[in-house]
């Protein structure tokens, strides 16, 4: 006699919830569809639709009389954004700031994450992680503003006898490195935590000096985490304009241009065209790093 191990099938007259449950149990595809439909629809209808619309809007123009977007197809915006020296300068400056911020954060985060994950005593580890995490959620604006106070004329830096960079591009790099630092420390710390201690012991038992262990054992395991961190700092910096407003003085970033064209200048097509620059840069970066598995570490 064969025993039916499936849950009780929906007999006629049973509550429909049970019938639905049995149906979903038997049909994996249906179950998947039930799980996937709402979130996938949201991401596609809201986000992908928005990104596609952005691309299309960049090919439109603004009616100079009414100030409304006119659906006349043109490449003018794209040509202007790619050939006008003003936009080139701003794009290069933004890229430079983003790279600098990423490098500064990486240099600071690596030894700290290593110390917290592998050197500090277990009791201190928890404390240090929380100490790094806490300012992560202290408001972004507060942190940018705090640097304004530090850098200001007659501010803390001057009092300490340090030559303040004032409100400048350097100030933007400092403030943004400061604001995004936890986003770099956290993934790298998680990466270090995944390196088993036994592997480090084996390496030193086999005669490797700490630096050799670092280079040959730890670093290869850590690469995806480091890249995950760089995606955060790089992308967040590329899209910033508010820190530039607060501590940048006259420093303009791509974000500043986008914001000005959405608001005051009321030229959405041009703003969209400018926004395509960071999209292209990040997409290229994501494609390059996709193979490293970094995207699973975000």
């Amino acid at each position, binding site marked *: 006699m064969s025993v039916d191990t499936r849950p009780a099938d929906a007999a006629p007259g049973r509550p429909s919830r049970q019938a639905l449950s049995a149906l979903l149990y038997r049909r994996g595809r249906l179950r998947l569809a039930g799980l996937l439909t709402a979130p996938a629809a949201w991401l596609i209808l809201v986000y992908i639709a928005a990104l596609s619309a952005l691309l299309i809007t960049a090919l439109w123009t603004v009616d100079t009389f009414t100030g409304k977007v006119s659906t006349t197809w043109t490449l003018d915006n794209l040509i202007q954004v790619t050939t006008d020296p003003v936009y080139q300068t701003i794009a290069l400056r933004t890229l430079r700031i983003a790279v600098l911020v990423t490098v500064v954060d990486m240099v600071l985060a690596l030894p*700290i994450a290593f110390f917290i994950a592998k050197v500090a005593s277990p009791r201190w580890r928890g404390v240090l992680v929380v100490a790094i995490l806490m*300012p992560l959620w202290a408001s972004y604006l507060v942190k940018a503003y705090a640097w304004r106070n530090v850098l200001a004329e*007659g501010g803390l830096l001057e009092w300490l006898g340090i030559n303040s960079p004032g409100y400048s591009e350097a100030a933007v790099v400092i403030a943004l490195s400061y604001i995004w630092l936890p986003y770099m420390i956290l993934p790298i710390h998680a990466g270090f935590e995944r390196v088993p201690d036994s592997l480090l012991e084996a390496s030193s038992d086999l005669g490797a000096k700490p630096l050799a262990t670092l280079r040959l054992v730890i670093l290869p395991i850590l690469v995806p985490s480091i890249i995950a961190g760089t995606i955060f700092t790089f992308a967040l910096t590329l899209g910033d304009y508010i820190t530039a407003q607060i501590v940048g003085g006259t420093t303009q970033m791509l974000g500043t241009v986008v914001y000005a064209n959405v608001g005051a200048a009321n030229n959405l097509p041009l703003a969209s065209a400018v926004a395509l620059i960071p999209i292209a840069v990040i997409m290229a970066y994501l494609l390059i790093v996709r193979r490293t598995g970094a995207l699973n570490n975000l």
Partner: protein
Amino acid sequence: MKLSRSARITLGTLTAVVLLFIYVPLLLVVVNSFNSDRSFGWPPRSFTLEWWSRAFQSEGVREAIATSLWVALISTAISLILGTLLALALQRHDFFGKDVINLLVILPIALPGIVTGIALNNLFTTVLGVSLSLWTVIIAHATFCMVTVFNNAIARLRRTNSSLEEASSDLGAGIFTTFRLVTLPQLRSALVAGGLLAFALSFDEIIVTTFTIGAGQQTLPVWILNNLFRPNQAPVVNVVAVVLIIASVVPVWLAQRLSGDAIGMTRSRKKASPGITKASSTAR
């Protein structure tokens, strides 16, 4: 790995210096909230509580806080539902196009905020012709908050194997019963942690918000930005900032206590049994 004593001390000192670098600017804001000098020169001249009392009487601040709470609550609720569904779909099923969905879900945090901001602004105003409101802000926030919930949920799902769920259905529990009695309790703390982080993220978000909020409405960050450069209001901004710093400790502390998963912080070795840890580490 045997590190020399001096290497340990160097690393420790470096960590201490960076922590100092992290906290000094924040402390400066705290001190300045009691500084009677409006231009915040250093060192502060004299102590005052005037800014604190003005902040507590400010109706603009109160309204902005209420707006921010409302926006953050709704976006967190939406992202909790969508993020959990997505994590279950991607972790427990294999299907064509899984990689694409995987990339799709991280896109809202991988692309700069300004891109999300202008893309949604353009979608609402040009394409759909909807006027911007708090609802457009909520839709925007939910889109990227979903990712934090998803990350927390999927990290937990990777660590819990599905044998309990199979046992549950072998014992005759339906799909919904299994979810309610087996899967959800396993996910609960990860979802609370993810939800808290999503809430904090939405509460603090400024770039996407400035592009999607309607005229005349303000969340707390928008209020701060609007008042940052007003000489009369800047001291009040300091007070609000201090309150925010203190308030932000709560979600972090809670999230940290509830889940080792908080923002990718895996403490699996302490919590899960060795077998499960091994399974999850090979899964990566």
